[in-house]
């Protein structure tokens, strides 16, 4: 059985056997959970279904968070993408940005989401995969399988470092989600397992040091928009890896560095709303607006 303590080892094992990381992971998980691979696949299919629903739920014009601080971002971005011919980022990417906003907004409005790996970072993986499904006609089965690759990478990060903002800052939440998504994207594009690991490493490097500083302690500001940066990083790092660009620092070392940075981070910057954007004059005003009514 796999130990999930090295992305490098996962990639080497998959390449040795001529299979994908997702095939390796589903086989291993089936064995350790004593569930058939088909049942595991079907469970993941349900998760993908929920992701698609969160996209459409969060895309509604009147979507509003519980606190009232945020809402409607997915709708605005999607309308802009449609009406401006894709804006600066182009049709596909701006619509993907809208999807990440929609899912993160769905979460903030007490809608149903799939934590991936957490609720705060729940927009990144669906933003990437649902976009490929809806806007690029990718095969659904390939996309669902790639979620096992994302999951395997996430397990290594959880085992080696952390996926909790309270322990490692936002780099551990949105950073991990982007790394997981980057690996999945490389796989669905037919990249090698080691290219998956490269994409992962680059995504982690690009969010190294990101703090968790939620205004009023709520999963809204800046979390919803950080799902967008995570998504863009996932796409760009996957494309770099597919282009043959190698990560100069191996993935496992990036994870260890992320842990070291997270440990060194002040506790005010780890989900306590004690610093960063949370304690800016406007951040404090917004907090008072929510809680002093």
């Amino acid at each position, binding site marked *: 059985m796999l130990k999930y303590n090295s992305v490098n080892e996962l990639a080497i094992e998959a390449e040795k056997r001529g299979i994908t990381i997702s095939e390796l*992971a589903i086989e291993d998980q089936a064995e350790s959970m004593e569930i058939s691979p088909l049942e595991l696949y079907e469970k993941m299919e349900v998760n993908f279904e929920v992701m698609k629903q969160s996209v459409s739920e969060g895309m509604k014009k009147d979507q509003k968070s519980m606190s009232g601080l945020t809402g409607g971002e997915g709708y605005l971005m999607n309308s802009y993408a449609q009406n401006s011919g894709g804006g600066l980022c182009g049709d596909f990417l701006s619509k993907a940005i809208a999807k990440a906003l929609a899912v993160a907004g769905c*979460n903030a409005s007490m809608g149903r989401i799939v934590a991936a790996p957490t609720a705060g970072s729940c927009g990144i993986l669906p933003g990437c995969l649902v976009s490929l499904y809806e806007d690029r006609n990718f095969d659904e089965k390939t996309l669902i399988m790639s979620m096992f690759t994302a999951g395997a990478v996430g397990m290594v990060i959880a085992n080696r470092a952390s996926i909790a903002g309270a322990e490692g800052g936002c780099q551990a939440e949105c950073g991990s989600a982007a790394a997981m998504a980057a690996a999945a994207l490389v796989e669905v594009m037919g990249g090698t397992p080691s290219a998956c690991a490269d994409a992962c490493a680059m995504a982690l490097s690009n969010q190294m040091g990101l703090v968790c500083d939620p205004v009023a302690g709520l999963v809204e500001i800046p979390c919803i928009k950080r799902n967008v940066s995570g998504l863009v990083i996932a796409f760009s790092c996957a494309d770099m890896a597919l282009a043959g660009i190698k990560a100069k620092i191996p993935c496992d070392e990036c994870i260890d560095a992320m842990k070291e940075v997270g440990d060194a981070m002040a506790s005010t910057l780890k989900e306590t709303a004690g610093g960063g954007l949370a304690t800016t004059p406007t951040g404090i005003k917004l907090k008072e607006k929510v809680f002093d009514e």
Partner: protein
Amino acid sequence: MTRKNVSQIRFLNNKGETVNVNVFDIIGPVMIGPSSSHTAGAVRLGRVVNKLIDDRPLKKLEITLSGSFAKTYKGHGTDRALLAGIMGYKSYSPEIRDAHEIAKKRGIDYSFLKENIKGAHPNTARIQYFLEDGTDGMMQGASIGGGNILVQRINGMNVDFNGENTTILVMHEDKPGVIASVTNMMHWEYEDLNISNFHLSRQEKGGEAIMTIEIDGLPPETIVDEIRGIEHVKNAILIKRV
């Protein structure tokens, strides 16, 4: 007494052990947002009370929020999550958002109080419930992150369980031999049942006492009736993973 066939005992996973992180801990769970600790964990705390109530009609609830729960409950929907859990909804039920309306429709008289419970974890809730049949009870627990919970007090007595494993709560009179009667019966009737954690608490010598028994795997529901039949046992409740 005849021993029950081992195959009647269903296990949660391969060897009845707590499994390490699996792929669905990372891609999942499916949950109602926005926060695993302030929303999903709060639903699970509520669900413990739902098990304690055991389908008896509920009349009134007094819910005390402490620490971060007291400060941020509105924006996280912690109040809705606790109510929904008490009414039996799960952390992925879309009804959580409408928990206030559903509770009112069910005629439940509920109130939320803010109080700093001394020495408690920052995300602590104390739920007092009053039933139509005149009985009442309380549970205090904390949401400790990532949707994980810790149940700390029931009816004024200390307990200690996390709702991950199968837990049997036995309310009984503090009399010699009751623990032995319960555990002997469990071993005799269900030979594969393994106790992974045991905790006893009592109000006073000879008074009301509570056993918290965590076990590997999932026993048949009948085990509760069998424990209830033991002398000096007042009630037994089986709490599967909440």
